[in-house]
């Protein structure tokens, strides 16, 4: 499979993966493009990997985690918001109503990535550990912590709904 065939077949999957980890469509497309550009630069090496798609997904995930470690990575709104020039995100309406989607935004980047790889990409803990360069026990601990946080958030929301 040459690069163009791979990108045509799996590119959109990468954008979706980028969206599930970042929650931002613009960033998802950038992450997919960064991953594809890096893969294209070393395509021979990517092709030789056991699973080229996992190799490219690793690039995307690591790019996202590197991005979140930067000091400038914030979602704080600017002081002067020009609503006339904001670009509507077509994904926003669909997912905004989902409490669980909102709760995911409160997790750390690594916790969210682990959950996405486990429950969206259906990877086992060993594969996730290999992809992130950590131990399987760390994956289990991170996932457990993230699930506990989500459960707590959902329970507190349900209590809030019962209040007058």
């Amino acid at each position, binding site marked *: 499979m040459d690069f163009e065939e791979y990108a045509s077949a799996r590119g959109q999957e990468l954008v979706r993966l980028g969206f599930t980890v970042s929650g931002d469509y613009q960033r998802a497309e950038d992450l997919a493009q960064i991953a594809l550009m890096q893969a*294209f630069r070393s395509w021979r090496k990517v092709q030789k990997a056991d699973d080229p798609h996992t190799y490219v997904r690793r690039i995307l995930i690591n790019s996202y985690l590197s991005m979140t470690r930067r000091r400038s990575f914030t979602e704080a709104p600017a002081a002067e918001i020009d609503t006339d020039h904001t670009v509507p995100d077509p994904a926003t309406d669909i997912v905004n109503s989902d409490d669980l989607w909102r709760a995911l935004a409160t997790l750390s980047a690594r916790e969210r990535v682990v*959950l996405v790889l486990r429950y969206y990409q259906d990877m086992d803990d060993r594969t996730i550990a290999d992809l992130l360069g950590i131990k399987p026990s760390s994956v289990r601990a991170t996932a457990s912590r993230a699930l506990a946080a989500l459960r707590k958030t959902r329970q507190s929301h349900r209590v809030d709904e019962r209040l007058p």
Partner: protein
Amino acid sequence: MSKTELEEDLRATFERAAASVPLAPDLAGRATTGVRQAQRRTWIASGAAAAAIAVVAGVGFSLNHGSTSPPPTPVASKPTAAVTTAAVTTAQALAGTWRPVKLNGFTTLKVGRPDDPTLTFRSDGTWTGSDGCNSLAGTFTIGQRGEFTSHADGQRLIECGNVPHTAVLAAARRISTDQATLRFYAGDGREVAIYARTR
């Protein structure tokens, strides 16, 4: 809520979110074009660097081997005109790396980007930078009273809420700077942007 129920909800939420993502057009073309253009820029830069080294080496060779022509006048000798002195001084004051603090009409400076969106000016009249995810480069001139012109040869390849440095530089007709702050002004005197020195 049981763990299994939460896990099922998570799967459904991720699937729903992923399904909502609009189709991104021509990802393969954009990736290959971006890499090839970056490689072309690298080749051009490498060629220019090689040519410069060859020129310097040639000059050094001729000086060391008894060239009959008179030695070149030292560049840093007495300035020949007040304009030259002022321009060099101002360019030196501008030299360094600056981060955007306020750009008129641009409201999403604080959004996270792959790279820090900075501008670096050098006293040789060149500038480089990043709009957050693309490398930028160009040249600039500074006049006696802060008159400013610039040329950009960068190209935007990746979208990331790109900081419009090139638009600021294109609109700027005058600059003022102190140790910590750099201000760009349009031709009608309006302030276009404020940058702060990073180092």
